[in-house]
Structure formats: structure tokens, C-alpha cells
């Protein structure tokens, strides 16, 4: 099998060295200070859930990481390197892939075409369909995806869960190290949610660093190793899932604070940038 190496190889470090570290990141849109001194860490082989109420700054943080726009200030450390990411291409080159909420698949193309969209394999100017189909099959098999009938069926004929699966499979096809999933279960039924969560877990077990944005705490507690809570543009807590209860997470989401846990943010959220915001 020639599945991309990042999927196969389990990295030696098992979660203590962060793959991506953001330190004191700020982002403003005009007068609105959306992200205020945010710290954010993700670890290889782990699922980090990013939660927060509407308007907490989740999307802004993700778009900054994905290079859709640059952060105004703060450090962006990826794989130990201090980098500057200001375009989606740079993020892709680092191995960062984002699976957006609205999927971004082409209904009129089949699964293989969608997996390789924009990065087709060509041989002598013509599409190398055989190679693409083989790699697509290997990737789906590597993710233990067995629910699709034919790899050549149009995406339009897939269920919501299957579409999400294709979108996620696309993100791991390219030696990716960090996969960001924006609300992957938002529109799915119970069985399909389970199917997608399994896939999310499997990505992390293969050594990828996974960021899961979700409003559904059931999902978060089912698959996440760590939980990061954004509250009004500040990182209210970065904790291990095992160390918190559901109620504490709800309090963090709604009030930005809770008693009895180490929020892992060393009080930064309070004093860094909050004052100069307004």
C-alpha cells in the first residue's frame, strides 16, 4: 500500500509536544477585536475539540490557521518552526487541511474526482484515472470506509454521512498533519454521526492532529482528548477531556469561567488584550 506516509507513520511523540501552537494571537476586523491574545495548541495523535458559543471567534481562529487571512499579531508555531501563514496554499504546504461545514464537494463529479479535485494526477498531460482510483481506494480502505457502494458513483447520490466521509478522506490524502473539521456532524442523523465520529477518532489514531469544532457536547466527549473553550474572543480553557465534567464545559462556554479546574491558560485570557479591546 502506498497511502501517504503521514497517515501510516505513527509519530513517536504521543501528545506532549504540540504540533501547532498559537501564542497571544490577535485579530481585529475594523473596530471589532475578534481574537484577543488567544493561545491554542493541538497535539499529534489527539483530537482537540474547539468549542464556544456563537460569535466566540471559532471560525475566525480556524480561518487564521488555514491562512484565509493572517493574524494581526502573535506567534504561529507549527512543528517546532515559527512560521507565517497568510494564504491557504501555505497552510496546505505545511500539511494543514480544513473540512468546511458546507462540505465543498462537487455534486456532479464522482468520489474519485472529488478526492483529487484541484490536485489531479496526470501522466503526459492526460488524467491518470487508474492511479487516482487506486489511491482513492487505498485511502478509503485505510480509513475503513466501507459504506460506499462504488467509488465511481456521483457525490450527489451519497448520504450526508458519506459525503462528510469523502470530504474528510480528501483532507488526509495529501500527507496532512493537521485536519480541522468544522461542525462535521451538524446535519447528520444518529447513525451517520456515529460513523463520522469513528472516522474522526481513526484519523487521530493514525497520528494526525485533529481539531473538531462542534456545538454538540456529546460528540465532544465521545471523541476528543482535549477541549479548548473560546469565550468572547479569549481562550477560556484548554483542558484534557478526562479532567472536566460536562457541566464545567457548559459553564466555560456560557460564562468563560468555572471553579475547580486548571484552565491551562495561566490567566492569560484575562489580562492579555481584554483590556485594550474596547
Amino acid at each position: 500500500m502506498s497511502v501517504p506516509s503521514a497517515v501510516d507513520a505513527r509519530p513517536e511523540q504521543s501528545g506532549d509536544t504540540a504540533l501547532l501552537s498559537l501564542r497571544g494571537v490577535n485579530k481585529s476586523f475594523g473596530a471589532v477585536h475578534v481574537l484577543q491574545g488567544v493561545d491554542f495548541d493541538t497535539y499529534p495523535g489527539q483530537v482537540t475539540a474547539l468549542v464556544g458559543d456563537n460569535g466566540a471567534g471559532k471560525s475566525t481562529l480556524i480561518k487564521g490557521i488555514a491562512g484565509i487571512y493572517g493574524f494581526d499579531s502573535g506567534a504561529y508555531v507549527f512543528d517546532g518552526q515559527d512560521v507565517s501563514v497568510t494564504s491557504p496554499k501555505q497552510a496546505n504546504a505545511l500539511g494543514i487541511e480544513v473540512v468546511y461545514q458546507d462540505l465543498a464537494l462537487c455534486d456532479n463529479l464522482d468520489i474519485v474526482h472529488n478526492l483529487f479535485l484541484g490536485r489531479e494526477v496526470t501522466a503526459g498531460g492526460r488524467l491518470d484515472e487508474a492511479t487516482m482510483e487506486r489511491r482513492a481506494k487505498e485511502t478509503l480502505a485505510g480509513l475503513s470506509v466501507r459504506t460506499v457502494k462504488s467509488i465511481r458513483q456521483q457525490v450527489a447520490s451519497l448520504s450526508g454521512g458519506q459525503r462528510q466521509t469523502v470530504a474528510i478522506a480528501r483532507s488526509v490524502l495529501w500527507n496532512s498533519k493537521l485536519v480541522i473539521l468544522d461542525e462535521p456532524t451538524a446535519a447528520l442523523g444518529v447513525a451517520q454521526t456515529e460513523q463520522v465520529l469513528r472516522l474522526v477518532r481513526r484519523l487521530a489514531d493514525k497520528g494526525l492532529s485533529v481539531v473538531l469544532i462542534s456545538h454538540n457536547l456529546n460528540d465532544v466527549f465521545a471523541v476528543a482528548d482535549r477541549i479548548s473553550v473560546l469565550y468572547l474572543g479569549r481562550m477560556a480553557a484548554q483542558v484534557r477531556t478526562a479532567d472536566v465534567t460536562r457541566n464545567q464545559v457548559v459553564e466555560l462556554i456560557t460564562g468563560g469561567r468555572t471553579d475547580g479546574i486548571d484552565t491551562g491558560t495561566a490567566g492569560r485570557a484575562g489580562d492579555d488584550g481584554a483590556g485594550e479591546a474596547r
Partner: protein
Amino acid sequence: MTTTAPAEQPTSQTIVEPQRGLRGSVQDYVERVRGGDVGSLPAILGLLVLSLVFAVLRPTTFTNSFNLANLINQSAAVIVIAMGLVFVLLLGEIDLSAGFTAGTAGAVLAIVLTRQGQPWPVAVLAGLVTGAVIGFCIGLLVARLGIPSFVVTLAAFLGLQGVLLSLIGEGGTIPMRDETLLALNNDPMPVWLGWTLAALVVLGYAGTSLRRAATRRAGGLHADAMSVVLAKVAVLTVLLGAVTWYLSEERSRNPAVTSIKGLPQVVVLLVVLLVGLNFVLGRTSFGRHVYAVGGNAEAARRAGINVLRVRLACFVISSTLAAVAGLLLASRNNSISPNTGGAETLLYAVGAAVIGGTSLFGGKGKMLDAVLGGLVIGVIINGMGLLNQPSSVVFMVTGLVLLVAASVDALSRKRAASTGRV
């Protein structure tokens, strides 16, 4: 670490697709059609039914080989414009100016050829460049400024009509006298060349099909069974063989004076365009990107496809092919007049693409659609002419056929939506 994720059995089974024989492939096709994926079927049925009707009503005049060659020559320009329109329609856009682009490019060609006395390759090149430039301007306005293509090309439709008038001078025509160009859309090719062409097409098709099946099987992938490939090659051989044989018969009314036999020369051009553009759409990254932009432009953009460039390229291709059609119109009429490419030319071409199975909503269509649809239109015009019907009736019937085709498209879309196909 939380391990509350749902447990599962680790099996590494891949997706298995059974090999389908001839029978299975036919079943698959029937199932696809019933599921709403009708493809070119309405056009093929329409072609058969219309041909039968005219053959019954005008048994001698419609079916003779003279008329068949005539029909191909009549349809050629519409087919070529429709081929270009397929690119634009795949994006979900429209090019209303393609007809007058053909006229304008034809006028430039005729001016360079007749008034300036240049050799024909120079004149043809000038015509093609004219088309490409028109397409580039339209493409820039649509893709960069974001003006709806309907409006831009409607403006171009009016504007180019004026350009054509001023190029020719009011009321006049520009004659064409170059033998090579006049022969292109009027005369037959030698009989041996027709047979060679037919053989090349069959061998080429068989070769690529067999090679693809072989490489796929070597790579352990699902491939068409040998029986299916051979059946397709056999059908193509019989069809092409029959047409070539029929048109290789003497069809001159007075063979002693002039001998007319062989495939029309324009068939070479049509085959080259069909094969070439089919390759571009189906086998290159660019073609794949065209379908992607037509299916979901936002998804294409996020996948790193330069959507603007794809749009621009499609308009340039469409207008350049319209310029080729301008050459055919000039050849057919021996001249360029202010009406060349005007009147119903464009609507016939749009109708051809849609009747062939290209969707007006983008993302669905093939090159063959333009050829089949163009032939349907050609049969209607030709047959109605033989029935001595006034233009009023021809227009009404053509409109009706187009409506039927669009209804088939809409119904199959509905059906497809309910069975989960596009």
C-alpha cells in the same frame, strides 16, 4: 485519553465492484436511464423518429445519399457553434453572441481573403484570432467584473451585429472565391479518404478502449468486460461503415458531367473537433476543472482551482469555435452577408446542445451532445424543407422539438433528484 469512541471491528475490506458482462452492462444502463440519467438517449430517439417520419413522408427525396450529404453540410456550422456552447453551458453560463461572432469572424476572413488578396491560411488565422479576441473580452467581463453572461453576450449580440454591418458595408456582401475554402463545406472528399477516416476512427476507438481496460485490469481496478468493449466497437463499425458506404455511392444527378461521391469534406473537421475536444473535456485537468466550476464554483475555488481562468478559457474556446463555424457558413454560402450567423443560427445551436443532453444549469454535458443535437436540428430543417413547408411551420416545429427536449431534461432531473443522481 478518552476511548469512548464507538468500538468497531477492524476489517480491511475494500470496496468491491463486480465485473459486469455484456448483459450486466445493459442492465446497468437501463437502470441508469430509469433513474433519470438519460444522457444522449432522447437525442438518439429523436433522430431515429424524425428520420423515420420524413423517410415515410418523402421516401425518395429524404433518404437518398445526395440529401444525406446535404444534411451533413447544412448542419455542420450549427454543430460547431454548439460544440463551443457546451463549454459555456457546462459552467452554467450562456453565450448569446456566438452566432454573430461567427458572422464577424467570417467577415474578417472574407475581407483578408478577398479584399486584401491574402492566401487562405492567413485569412483563416485572422478569422480565428477575431473569435478568440471576442471571447477573451466577453470572458473578462463575465469572470472578472462578474456581469451575468446573459447581459454581456446580449450586448455583444447587438454590438457584433453592428460590427458585422460596418465591416461589410450596408446592403452588400463579400464574396469568397478561394477553391479550398469553398470545397470545405460543399464538396466530398475522395472515396478512399472517407474509408481511411472511418477505419482510423474505429481503430482509434478500439485501441484506446482496449488499452484503458487493460491498464485498469492490471491495476486491479474495475474494468469493462471484453464483451462490452467489443460490442461498442462493433456498433460503431456498423454505423460508420453504413454511412461511409452509402455516401461513397455515386449521387450526382448527371454522373456523366460531374461525379459526386464520398464523405463530405466537412466530416474531417467535425471528427477532429469531436475527438480533440472530447479529449480536452474528459481526459485533462482543465476539462475536469470545467465540470467542477459548473457543479460547485465555491468548492472548485477552495480546491485551489483558478475559477476565473477556467471561465475565461471557456468563453475563448466558445468564441473561437464560433469563428470556425463562421468559416463554414462563409464556405457554404460562398459569401458573407450582414445576416451571416444571424436570425436563428444561435438559437439552433443552443437548441442542439440542449436537445443533445447538455444541461442549461451547468455541470452536465458532453461533446457528442452537440453533434447529435445538431443532427436532430439539421433533420428537422432539411425534412421540413423537403415537405415544402413554409418557414412559419418550420419555426413552430423546431420550437416544439426544443420544448420537448427541455421537458425531457427537466423531467429526468426531477427523477434523478429523487433517485440521488444529478
